[in-house]
């Protein structure tokens, strides 16, 4: 399905889904507001600004930082592969799996792996892929898609999950979350302990020390990176801190922004292989550093800052549009405000034009972002490209009708006499359509989209300009116009 047609349809489906609405309200009420309160009462109000500045410095020297990271990973026995495209990443991972006779892969939650599309490729190669994050596991069992970066199955309620588990896991029906969690724990333990390969993302790598660092609460990521023979970590190329100091700053912002936590239950620093010092690490560690369109974003000063994103999900938790439509409407691994910017940039601006235009630019995401990303500014830029086309980003103008409409609008507002005339015509037209309540409830064309659910006031019997001319102007001395 063409994503640009499906946005509105999926949005409507999301709005009609009571379970999703309830889940979103809860998450936004708790975490969105909570994060805003936290930033406003932070002892160090400049912290986010400093973090942003540090991130930009790292991004501006990303070639140096990544070279350092790769070197240090290799020093502790890991391998590093630089994947220019998603296909490269898939090819490499399949090779590693083949060489190691991998039959079962356990996954930690990773949006990058979804972006690349590694799961279907592994399954096609006859390898079993098991999501181990509880939310992702549920979504996988339900053959569905995640709807939130941090809380993937927020669109399902306990009843639905109870039925799912009764069906797929063969347990007695229960809708009690602790019991459901226990069932998943038991089912997944066996997978985690017998898997050949763990496949995870990377929250924030540390270049200076050569570590891949993963933030979690469930313990599945620790399991997936410790117990299997092989660990492959996918890392978006920008997800790296230069040194431990930058790492600490970002870690604290990440856990606060994601779930209001001072620190998550587990923060693991990994990247080595098993040896005397690391008794139960994997036998092999592969870091796959992924470009897949990011270098183009890096090269454009207008959009470079979006790479500072640490994927905390806070913007999802405050966005009024996301809060109504849910994550599925974005048709992308990345949803919410951040998804609305990176998805078009990574996958095609025209293809995802609805993501660029389908929000109000209210600015809440900018206020909540731990690294102060100006997402509204970037959305506005994307709209500009869609309006007239853009060669660098291969954007075609989206709508000739709309362009024509605004050309006509321009003609109207650059001539006061034409403008006044149009108002007079509109006034005449709307007078006939004004109801008893003084409002107009049916307008043609574009106006009809408004009046489908809303009334419109008619053009006033006397516009303010007319009143000024007739009344106000005369009652004052020496006024100019």
């Amino acid at each position, binding site marked *: 399905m063409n994503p640009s047609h499906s946005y509105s349809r999926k949005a409507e489906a999301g709005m009609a889904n009571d379970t999703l609405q309830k889940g979103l309200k*809860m*998450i936004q009420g708790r975490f969105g507001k909570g994060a805003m309160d936290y930033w406003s009462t932070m002892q160090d109000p400049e912290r986010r600004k400093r973090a942003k500045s540090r991130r930009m*410095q790292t991004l501006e*020297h*990303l*070639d*140096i*930082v990544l*070279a*350092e990271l*790769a070197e240090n990973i290799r020093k*502790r026995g890991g391998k590093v*592969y*630089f994947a*220019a495209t998603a296909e*490269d990443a898939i090819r490499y991972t399949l090779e590693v799996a083949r060489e190691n006779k991998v039959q079962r892969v356990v996954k930690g939650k990773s949006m990058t792996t979804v972006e690349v599309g590694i799961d279907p490729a592994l399954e096609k190669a006859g390898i079993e892929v098991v999501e*181990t*994050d*509880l*939310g992702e596991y*549920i979504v996988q069992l339900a053959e569905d898609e995640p709807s939130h970066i941090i*809380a*993937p*199955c927020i669109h399902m309620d306990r009843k639905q999950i109870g039925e799912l588990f009764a069906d797929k896991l063969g347990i007695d029906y229960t809708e009690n*979350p*602790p019991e459901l*969690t226990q069932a*998943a*724990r038991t089912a997944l333990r066996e997978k985690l*302990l017998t898997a050949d390969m763990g496949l995870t993302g990377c929250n924030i790598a540390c270049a200076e020390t050569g570590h891949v660092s993963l933030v979690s*609460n*469930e313990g*599945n990521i*620790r*399991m997936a990176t*410790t*117990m299997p023979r092989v660990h492959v970590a996918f890392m978006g*190329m920008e997800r790296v801190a230069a040194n431990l*100091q930058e*790492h*600490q700053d970002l*870690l604290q912002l990440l856990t606060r922004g994601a*779930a209001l936590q*001072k*620190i998550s*239950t*587990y923060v*693991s*620093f*990994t990247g*080595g292989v098993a040896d*005397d*010092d*690391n*008794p*139960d690490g994997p036998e092999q560690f592969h870091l796959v550093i992924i470009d897949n369109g990011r*270098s*183009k974003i*890096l*090269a454009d000063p207008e959009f470079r800052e979006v790479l500072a994103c640490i994927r905390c999900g806070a913007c999802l938790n405050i966005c009024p549009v996301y809060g109504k439509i849910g994550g599925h409407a974005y048709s992308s691994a990345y949803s919410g405000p951040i998804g609305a910017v990176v998805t078009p940039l990574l996958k095609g601006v025209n293809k995802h034009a609805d993501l660029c235009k389908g929000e109000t630019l209210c600015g809440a995401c900018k206020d909540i972002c731990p690294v102060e990303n100006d997402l509204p500014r970037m959305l506005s830029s994307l709209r500009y490209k869609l309006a007239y086309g853009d060669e660098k980003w291969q954007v075609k103008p989206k709508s000739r009708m709309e362009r024509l409409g605004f050309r006509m609008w321009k003609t109207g507002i650059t001539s006061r006499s034409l403008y006044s005339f149009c108002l007079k015509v509109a006034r005449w037209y709307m007078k006939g359509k004004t109801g008893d309540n003084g409002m107009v409830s049916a307008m043609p064309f574009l106006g009809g989209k408004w009046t489908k659910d809303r009334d419109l006031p008619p053009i006033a019997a006397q516009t303010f300009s007319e009143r000024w001319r007739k009344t106000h102007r005369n009652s004052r001395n020496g006024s100019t116009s």
Partner: protein
Amino acid sequence: MSTYHDQSENEIHFLSTLRQAVAPGSDTPRDKRAYPEIFAYEDDRQLVEKIEQRNDLDQQGLASAFMDSADPQSLSVYTVKSLDEAADIIVNIARNRMPEFSNFRHIIQHAHDDIRELRLWERFSEDSITVHTTYREDAELREKTIASFIGITVADWGIADSATLVQCTRPGMPQSTSLVPSIHIGFIRKSRILANLSEAYAMMRRDSSLNSWCFISGPSKTADIEAHMVHGAHGPKEMHICILEDSKE
């Protein structure tokens, strides 16, 4: 001319793309030594001095703060004056909990000097509880860990303001001990408790022998189902911390 070894073709090409993106026109790989600010640290020597100058009373304060930070619903913290006292607690837990995934009770503990004198195997001579130690040479370490329902570890550092253990992987101290068994009991010396995350990072920074570590701040949990918090996801369901009384040398 690259300062790094073992760079593959694909790495060189990838990095060159990035270089062109941020510094168009630069033909050769950029040397990190020309950009010292990228990897520079703010001076934290004062912080380190502060940590080093703490006395026993200060550490007592930090231990109390550690206990206060622990969420009473999920994390139990005890201060123990001796390993005998600690052993009492462990014995109590072991006798009163059913193993989750097995009918047999196995315990696995780190091969670490701090807990060598626990002598749990003596305590359990009458019970059918087997005690294993994570000796480096043990080929069956993985099986023993999986079979155990209690894992006992020694942490390098503690962080008071979030009741966190800095669990470092070292010879004889695998990560899996604090991860796979259903119950995790972590030991930390009182003298090794730090105030906050910044201090922990300062210590990590100075330990070049470290390969991997994990900040552990409670038992595993999840809220993926209707944002309802459940303790016990894939890692340990239950966690206890014993703060060992000791003196700062």
